[in-house]
């Protein structure tokens, strides 16, 4: 039966994360952005709330949350800081998420408790310099030698690249099978031949670490093969279906944060003898942002609900992410416009929100990739 109301526990979770974000994150967000520092000291505090092991089961030290819970957490974090939202999303959804999805009992026992409690940070490596939207082009190669895999290649745009402890790396094991010849492996920080390359300087999400990774004859024991051989792509698609819900939630949170800032500013800022919020031109911008973000919220809820039901949600995740990313960007852009010159300065948080939000139109599949997924659903594989 149709019901749009969050459960009591979801409401409590939202309030808890909102209070936490206001107290522990908001006061530092500008500084972290300007200094491009990864807020390592925040991780234990996030872990205390269970936010570093959201979907991990309790027996592995996790919080046993639903996808709907995760969406709420990411949205609330992003309302004050896109970087922290991204860090938490990537750690939970990609790194830890892949081990939870495809890992065997031994792998889960070995890695998840420390990941879920924030002692270790998780990262995930799919993208390569010449293989972005097209995973079939992955050149990082894993070759079996005795009871070991030897990895060679490089990855780029890796969230938590230089601060991670545990890495899930996708490599080609059967190049002739293209994307259906990919396999996932678990690597650990400091392994011989595994080095962090360039730190990538980004437009936004400055407090989230993004780096290149290089693999030169890295020896990976065969027990660190994650999931079945040549099954990495199929698992990856599932990870992305859920990951897209997180990135959509991040865009929603950034948009809502910007909308709230704009609304407050419009009520206080006086020009021509009255609050600028009294002008219809301002009111209509606020109304459009609010409407578009409500639509995003409902698309996200439906995708997350389907995920929690164990149902297929590829189409719904892509529509949610495509819409939320665009709606978030427009809300941030309008917020800057409503703030006028002040909105263009770092004194106000809206320019940072826009810079952070742009990631959501690109990461975990660009808007264009989402449209490919949606169109395929509508008219079949053309």
């Amino acid at each position, binding site marked *: 039966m*149709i019901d749009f109301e969050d459960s009591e526990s979801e409401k409590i979770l939202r309030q808890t994360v909102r209070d936490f974000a206001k107290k522990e994150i908001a006061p530092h967000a500008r500084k972290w952005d300007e200094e491009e520092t990864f807020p390592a000291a925040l991780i234990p505090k996030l872990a205390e709330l269970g936010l570093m092991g959201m979907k991990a089961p309790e027996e592995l030290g996790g919080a046993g949350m639903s996808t709907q819970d995760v969406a709420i957490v990411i949205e609330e974090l992003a309302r004050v800081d896109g970087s922290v939202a991204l860090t938490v999303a990537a750690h939970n959804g990609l790194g830890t998420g892949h081990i939870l999805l495809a890992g065997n009992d031994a792998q889960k026992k070995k890695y998840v408790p420390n990941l879920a409690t924030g002692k270790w940070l998780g990262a995930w490596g799919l993208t390569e310099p010449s293989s972005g939207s097209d995973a079939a082009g992955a050149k990082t190669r894993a070759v079996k030698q005795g009871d070991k895999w030897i990895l060679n290649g490089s990855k780029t745009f890796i969230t938590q690249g230089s601060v991670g402890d545990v890495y899930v790396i996708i490599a080609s094991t059967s190049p002739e099978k293209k994307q259906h010849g990919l396999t996932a492996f678990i690597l650990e920080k400091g392994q011989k031949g595994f080095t962090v390359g360039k730190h990538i300087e980004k437009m936004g999400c400055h407090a989230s670490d993004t780096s290149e990774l290089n693999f030169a004859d890295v020896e990976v024991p065969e027990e660190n093969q994650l999931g079945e051989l040549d099954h990495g792509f199929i698992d990856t698609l599932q990870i992305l279906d859920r990951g897209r819900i997180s990135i959509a939630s991040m865009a929603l949170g950034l948009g809502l944060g910007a909308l709230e800032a704009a609304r407050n500013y419009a009520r206080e800022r006086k020009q021509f003898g009255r609050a600028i*919020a009294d002008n219809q031109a301002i009111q*209509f911008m*606020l109304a459009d942002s609010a409407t578009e973000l409500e639509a995003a919220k409902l698309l996200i809820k439906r995708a997350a609900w389907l995920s929690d039901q164990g149902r297929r949600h590829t189409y719904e995740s892509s529509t949610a992410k495509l819409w939320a990313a665009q709606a978030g960007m427009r809300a941030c852009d309008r917020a800057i416009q409503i703030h006028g010159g002040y909105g263009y300065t770092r004194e106000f948080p809206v320019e940072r929100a826009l810079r952070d939000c742009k990631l959501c139109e690109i990461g975990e599949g660009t808007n264009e990739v989402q449209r490919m997924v949606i169109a395929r659903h509508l008219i079949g594989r*053309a």
Partner: protein
Amino acid sequence: MIDFELTDEQRLVRDTARDFATRELLPKAAARDRSGAFPVEELRALAKLGLLGVNIPEPLGGAAAGVIAYSLAMTEVARADASVSVAMAVTNMVGEVIVRFGTEAQKEALVPLLTSGDALVGAFGLSEPQAGSDPGAMSTTAKRTANGWRLDGNKQWITSGDRAGVFVIWAKTDPAAGTKGISAFVVRGGTPGLSAGKHEDKMGLRGSSTVPLLLDGCEVGEDALLGKVGGGLSVALAALDGGRIGIASQALGIGQAALEAARTYVKTRVQFGRPIGEFQAVQFRLADMATELEAARLLTLRAAWMKERGVAFSKEASMAKLYASEAAWRACDGAIQLHGGYGYTRDFPVERYARDCRVTRIYEGTSEVQRIVIARSLLQQASNA
């Protein structure tokens, strides 16, 4: 707890409406658009299926299936023929407004006429030549007589105004009191002094009748007053809030029809040696149309769900109506574009969809009025939300 699953009853109403619309409405929709014929038989058939009183209690002849079911049924009917859906929408809302504000006697006398189709359809008389978005500016008056009230004035844009058996008409009982001086009246079709003017020659919804009403010494009894003296504005706002869910549902149905037509066309139309659906520019346009209509569907469902729960839903209804009507318009325009020159001809239905759809951004409150409602709600919220 979040749930997106329909109940069996809601599914049944939706499937009944879809089945009827596909079988009985779709085949003649284009012909009605050309001839402007009013869908008398079709409306009677809708009444038999319970679709003229979807959210009206059973003792009054309604289906008592709720607001969500109403929204789903509207979408299905609009998908086949938007002209039929607008008469259906107004009839449902006239019934709902009388159920909510009417006395027992008014309900028993009038609502069964609407649900059974005996009144054929219902109509609202709110807008006037000089009072559109601003009902406070209306000049129609209701003056006391020995036995009741006498209505005088002009109404404009009255859907089914020449066909309806039951009207709700707004007039000023205290012209000095602004919006607080407006009262609502129920008036039977054929009452002396109530007449319809010339049909508006509209861009779309050509199978729906839109006329001005002339109230010239139209005498009604004491029992015609709907709600309180001076309470007309709240009757109007209730009708509009509920009506907006209906129009959002209607827009969604038209947009959905446009998307489906486009999807079918791009799979069969071959250019440069392949179906145009293989071109990304075409795929992406479809993807955007589908995404926006999904969002429109959820906003509409949410507003309907809130109304069904009996909580305030004004802002949500405005968001649904604003978004769905704008998204549906983009979908119709996109569908024409994807059909190329053929889309511009009457050999394909998409130009009709666009013409029918255009008014959803205007009536039941323009998009601009919806933004006023939404902004007012946002700016009234506490700042620490």
